[in-house]
């Protein structure tokens, strides 16, 4: 099953490689990983999307917790949460396709953030499926380049992850 883990980790050199090293050494999957410092600059927050049986997820959580630099780990998918991912996608936009691209972008509540005579660069956020849907919805031949960040997640309501 797919799980989304939130990890608070000390903002120290090498901390990220400990996490990725752990996943590769123990044969766990990383579907995506995002990381950036939090409002407290000494700490980073990671969102790791992974999949595996319940036993494997339990081990992943325990192994992550065991890393000296990891402060806290929660499995967001255990309760209600919100996920967002950012995609930047550069598409060919010429002739009548130009109008069509603009329309699709509006439907998906994206924004065109860079324009040339022949291209649009579109910014789109949302759950991963929405980004997938956008890619499917437009003409695949028109896609020049896509960049996706992978999911960031946060618990719904009052639920917070802090030390």
């Amino acid at each position, binding site marked *: 099953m797919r799980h989304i883990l939130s990890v608070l980790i000390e903002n120290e050199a090498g901390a990220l490689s400990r996490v990725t090293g752990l996943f590769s050494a123990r044969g766990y999957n990383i579907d995506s990983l995002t990381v950036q410092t939090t409002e407290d600059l000494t700490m980073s927050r990671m969102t790791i999307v992974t999949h595996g049986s319940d036993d494997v997820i339990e081990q992943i959580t325990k192994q992550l*917790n065991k890393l*000296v*630099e990891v402060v806290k780990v929660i499995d967001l998918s255990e309760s209600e949460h919100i996920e967002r991912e950012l995609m930047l996608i550069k598409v060919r936009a010429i002739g009548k396709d130009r109008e069509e691209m603009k329309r699709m972008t509006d439907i998906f509540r994206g924004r065109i953030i860079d324009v040339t005579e022949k291209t649009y660069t579109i910014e789109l956020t949302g759950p991963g499926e929405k980004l997938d849907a956008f890619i499917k919805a437009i003409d695949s031949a028109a896609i020049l380049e896509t960049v996706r960040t992978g999911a960031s997640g946060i618990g719904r309501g009052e639920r917070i992850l802090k030390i």
Partner: protein
Amino acid sequence: MEISGAEIITRCLAEEGVEFVFGYPGGAVLEIYDAIFKQDKFKHVLVRHEQAATHAADAYSRSSNKVGVALLTSGPGATNGITGIATAYMDSIPMVVISGQVGTPAIGLDAFQEVDMVGCSRPVVKHNFLVKDVRDLAVTIKKAFHIATTGRPGPVVIDVPKDVTINKTEFSYPASIAIRSYNPPTKGHPGQIKKAVHLIGEAKRPLIYVGGGAVQGNASQEVTELVKLLNAPCSNTLMGLGIIDGTDPNFLGMLGMHGTFEANLAMQYCDVLIAIGARFDDRVISVPNHFLAQPKKIIHIDVDPSSIAKRVKVDIPIVGDVKHVLTDLIAVLKETGARPNAEGLADWWKQVEAWRKPDCLHYEKSAEIIKPQFVLEKLCKVTQGNAIVTSDVGQHQMWTAQYYKFRRPKQWINSGGLGTMGFGLPAAIGAQLANPDAQVACITGDGSIQMNIQELSTAKQYHIPVKIILLNNRYLGMVRQWQELFYGNRYSETYLEALPNFEKLAEAYGHVGMRIERPEDVEPALREAFTTHKDRCVLLNFITDGTENVFPMVQNGKGLNQMDLPAHMRNLQQTPFENNRDYGNLC
């Protein structure tokens, strides 16, 4: 006053009460060696290969309550140390390793003797640090000792670039340290302990299974008290040997791949298993499904949550330090009076005694040729079970585990998790330095001893009077055994031709060498080594029966009740594996 990074290192080590640093110099650590030269708080032990530095430091920890320290130069010095670091890691042994690194401006430029030590060691350390600023050095060393010794112990590497050893700063060593992201558990959850007591109160066939965590956690007294309080049978893993006296009637011997008949069957057929600081290793329970097919309830005490439910689901996990948890568990047992069902326990003991009776460690004595088991029995006798025994890896290691009756914890020093040949001799050196008055024996094989034989030179330099018991079978015996049993006697590359004359080799290094070829000479030779040559390093080259195999044996993929048994028990061989088999029918 400002002092250099190198001096900070030596001052920190002195503050930590370090007695010995095992190391080998080189360009990146010249400053540190100069600072060592100028101090007298600790001694440096110059090994002959960095692998030996990490093994000796590791065994220094294993055989004491102190922390072994190794010092390596950058590049090849550091990578040579990796095997020893991995060995300590697999057996959860505290150790601090300081490695030199090229200067910070040169990092990443493929500088001379540059290797990414933090990267290389990452998978085999509890934690590691690269210190880029001399002002962080003292606090990093404090953290390293703290992390190495608390929670589940393990090796910690500190990589120190050369300029950091030269740069100066004010020195102060913190008295204590708190790391917000690192808070290992100590006490177990009282609710879980109550549940465990309740379950114990319902047990009819209890077994106490104890591993290396109880040795590391210094819980020998508590384990023994629990065993006696419940009058339960007790078995140890290879790493747990000595936690309970090897001659105690409640002790069934080691369990696992080469465990005793009685211990393995008790493990298979118990109804309540109390696992203490043990990790259900594949060499212990073999295949989890076979092991669990016989229903049992499991209580698992471990300081590392990730050891729990890793290979086997358990009913009552108790996360905490073994000494704390057992103290509380025993208190509640006494308070409530909960004990295993008396009738059930009596029947269970009857069964266990029946399994014990055929004496699975019996072997055919010979008047002509030295049986390896015989040497170990005699060693145990001559040292009265009191020696600190280190070993290498192979058949000799298993026979030691089976035939030497260890009396106390930290007396048995071997590489279990990684199974590192070459561990024995440097380990003996580390153990002897930690225990200057103890008799120290290193059990080894003709293959293993040659993996770090250069350490005979270290033993000479520091007058280390270890006794090297070489069980010379002219084979890589453990591998040959597998080839005999599973590869149709095709002894591919396991016959060691061109063996040196080991006793002459020992003499060449300035030690005493002895060659023993006849069974009747075994005991006298051992006595001579431990009395006449008490203060010398002695290599006893025992020419043993090269065809001997280690039994019992649980083959890969088989259940614990499907052991291959020694010749005199072949009629009991291959108890078919069945679900819910009535334990009473065996034997």
